[in-house]
């Protein structure tokens, strides 16, 4: 589902942020991505959710070499990737309801087909009473839940989350993780970058550790055997 071959990344003429990364995450996998601040976690995620192109190497998503795709196709590929940003990136002047349904509007789906599901999802993440609220009136936790709802509303094939539980209390954090696990059970590939030790210790999923631009598998032995020497 996600494959990186000899991928390096540097911003402009700066130093290499990622160095010769090889990574293969099969369909339906669940991975934590850990590492110290500045290790390149967000950069790695950006490569996966097509916000950046690698300086070297190849990124394959859903079986396609992303560099070989047209801009139009890459835009369509992004519709299959749900992203939860560290800073949420909700659009300030849109209500919660408008924010989370934006991916459906962009994909051109009819409102009558998704309205009830959207309300149901918002109820599920505890924002059922805040449909018309603007992001600035939400707490950090509520904003994060709205961001997660926006990422999952299209039932994407891949969900990338950058510190998704950073601003929520443990109970909500666990609840959101359970939502992601449910989606994972339905075949969605999940990659979560996190500093939260409790999170990766409570949930027994493989952990990729990134440090000094290089990646290694540091826990969980249930590595996907069919993928060979992968992380």
């Amino acid at each position, binding site marked *: 589902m996600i494959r990186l071959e000899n991928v390096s990344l540097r911003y402009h003429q700066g130093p290499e942020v990622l160095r010769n990364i090889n990574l293969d995450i099969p369909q339906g996998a669940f991975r934590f991505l850990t590492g110290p601040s500045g290790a390149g976690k967000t950069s790695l995620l950006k490569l996966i959710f097509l916000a950046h192109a690698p300086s070297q190497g190849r990124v394959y998503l859903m079986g396609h070499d992303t560099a070989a795709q047209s801009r139009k196709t890459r*835009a369509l590929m*992004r519709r299959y990737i749900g992203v939860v940003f560290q800073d949420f990136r909700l*659009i300030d002047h849109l209500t919660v309801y408008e924010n989370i349904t934006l991916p459906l509007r*962009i994909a051109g789906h009819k409102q009558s087909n998704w309205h009830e599901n959207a309300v149901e999802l918002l109820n599920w993440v505890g924002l059922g009473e805040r449909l018309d609220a603007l992001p600035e009136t939400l707490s950090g936790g509520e904003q994060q839940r709205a961001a997660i709802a926006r990422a999952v509303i299209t039932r994407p094939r891949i969900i990338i989350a950058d510190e998704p539980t950073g601003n929520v209390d443990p109970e909500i954090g666990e609840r959101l993780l359970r939502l992601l696990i449910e989606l994972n059970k339905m075949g969605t590939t999940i990659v979560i970058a996190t500093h939260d030790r409790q999170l990766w210790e409570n949930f027994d999923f493989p952990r990729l550790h990134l440090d000094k631009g290089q990646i290694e598998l540091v826990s969980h032995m249930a590595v996907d055997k069919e993928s060979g020497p992968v992380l």
Partner: protein
Amino acid sequence: MSRPTKITILPPESLAGPALSAVTMVMTFLACLALGCSLLADRAADRWLQRATSALSVQIVETGTLSAEEQLPNVLRELRAAPGVESFRVLTRDDLIALLEPWLGTGNIGEDMPLPLLIEVTPDPDNPPATQALSAQIRAIAPGARLDTHGRWRETLESTANALQLFAALVLTMVTLATAMVILFATRAGLLANEEIIHVLHQIGAQDGYISRRFEAHFIGRTALAAAIGLAAALVFFYTLGGLVAEARSGGFLILLLPMPVAAIALSWQVTRRYVLRRLRTQI
């Protein structure tokens, strides 16, 4: 619970507003003015030219051996026989004095002042005479006679009309360029102000065309309103001008100004679309 189907993704306050509208309004007004004045001048020149080319005259002066009166019968005979001449009239001395008085002053033309004979010739508008041949024939039978086709006057009028058209085209070009630049800068500012929203839109699968259409819709709306006001101001101007130039009030003339706001909208659309798409293509 019913929800609005359409949402405004780009906040209007983040995009150029009254300043852009004011500039577009003034530019549309100027463009209408340039076009309108050019059209009025062109039509006036056409009319003058038509009059100038529809009037010929033959002037007869005395030569060393023949007086003007002695040459007159031959010239009249030639004019009667010439194809393309509809009618002609020999101007009386009073007619000539009336023509000269604006230059020489009333009462300054004495009885003894020699005046040439002047024949006003009206050509057949459908089949005008070959002026060069006619001129040569008249010269042959009356050495003191000269056919005047008002060529120099016509040339001056034509070159003035052409200069006016060139000037109007230049003004239109400058107005178009200035408007395009203003819209371009406004679009650029809009892109910068909405960088984060654009990033989010890209990330959730919006294609360049989708994002561009958000900008196009805003700027087309603004331009349409401002251009309509600019056109209305120009219509008021020309209607007022109608007191001096009657044609400026005619429906046939005013309707020719309507393409100006349409052109402004098309310009706004194309400038916005091309610029936004070009900038978006620089992103991954």
